[in-house]
């Protein structure tokens, strides 16, 4: 879940706090139906992340802009490798930030192995349309990351 929130917010420290807060919410107000507990946790985390991002959007924008400067390089890697990795990280952060929130949710929940039905519930759409929306978001993110697009539909 930390991975998901971290990708969603682009801020691992913030993600850590959000994950903790999510589990505190679980302890305080557990859902009546515990069968979909994983989806419930991700929804709570997403909502918390959304709230935090709304409040701190300016601060976050600054962080994204200065991400490369503010984030310390991994100590275990040599300088060149660390820089390369940081660049790649920054590219993905920017790519994800360029997506709409709905697109980000679609892709990141898919990465976490959620079913289309659960994703549909989270983004407020029909299960049948999730495939198309994922395809679109995938192409958009890939374009931002400089990956090749599939041939256009005839």
């Amino acid at each position, binding site marked *: 879940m930390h991975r998901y929130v971290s990708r969603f917010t682009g801020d691992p420290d913030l993600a850590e706090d959000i994950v903790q807060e999510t589990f505190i919410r679980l*302890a305080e107000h557990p859902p009546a139906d*515990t069968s979909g507990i994983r989806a419930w946790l991700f929804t709570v985390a997403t909502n918390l992340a959304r709230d935090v991002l709304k409040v701190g959007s300016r601060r976050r924008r600054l962080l994204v802009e200065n991400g490369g400067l503010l984030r310390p390089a991994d100590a275990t890697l040599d300088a060149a490798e660390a820089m390369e990795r940081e660049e790649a990280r920054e590219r993905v952060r920017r790519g994800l930030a360029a997506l709409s929130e709905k697109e980000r949710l679609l*892709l990141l929940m898919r*990465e976490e192995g959620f079913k289309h039905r659960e994703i549909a519930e989270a983004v407020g759409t029909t299960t049948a349309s999730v495939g198309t929306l994922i395809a679109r978001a995938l192409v958009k993110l890939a374009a931002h990351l400089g*990956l090749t697009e*599939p041939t256009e539909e005839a």
Partner: protein
Amino acid sequence: MSAGHVRHLDDGELIRLLDGECSAEEQARLTRHLATCSVCMQRQEAFEGLATAVRAALVRSDEPVRSVRVPKRTWRLGAFRAAAVLLAVSVGVAAASAPPVRAWLSARWAGLRAIVAPRATPGTEGRGITTVRFVPTNSTFAIELVARQDTGVLTIDVSGDTLASATVSPPPGMGGEELVVLPEGLRIVNRPGDRASYEVRLPRTVTEVRIRIADAPESRLVPARPWTIQLKKREP
């Protein structure tokens, strides 16, 4: 058997196939089409490649898993820290001493590992134990509350050195809450009508705290800062 008039698969269908989200019937239809249509087959492969590449980029960009952050509040357990130093010295001495001394110290140590000095509340004639102290043996610590209460909070602070403590406040009244230290954690025996609050302080050797309140699912927290959890019953 020309595919000339058959419509091509749309992107959604290709993704559904990729994600294993098709019904058996749809899957049969789509794979049948792919077998005869090189255009769609190429698009399917391209989507698959794209999804793999995006996944790889995401994984590469994930931050490495970091160690647990040191909590900011470390000043509160002065007395505990002194006890911890004493314990550490005792253990050190035990390791290096002659057998009788070592045996004696081991016995003391074993005693300390269980509930250390449950302290009776003044004036309640030993009935209401306010604080229990103990030494958690595992890196995971479980806290279980038997019931969800009318009110009260559970505070957890992972900042001590060796000793753990659990406190009930205000002290339990008639037949009130009971703190039971178990090998793997703490059981708070309470009832739905209770209004007490609990403070659990744990040493930093604990890296994961599991909390279960009544029959709700378990929460797993990683020490980062003190938490306060409301114990009042869920609003309908």
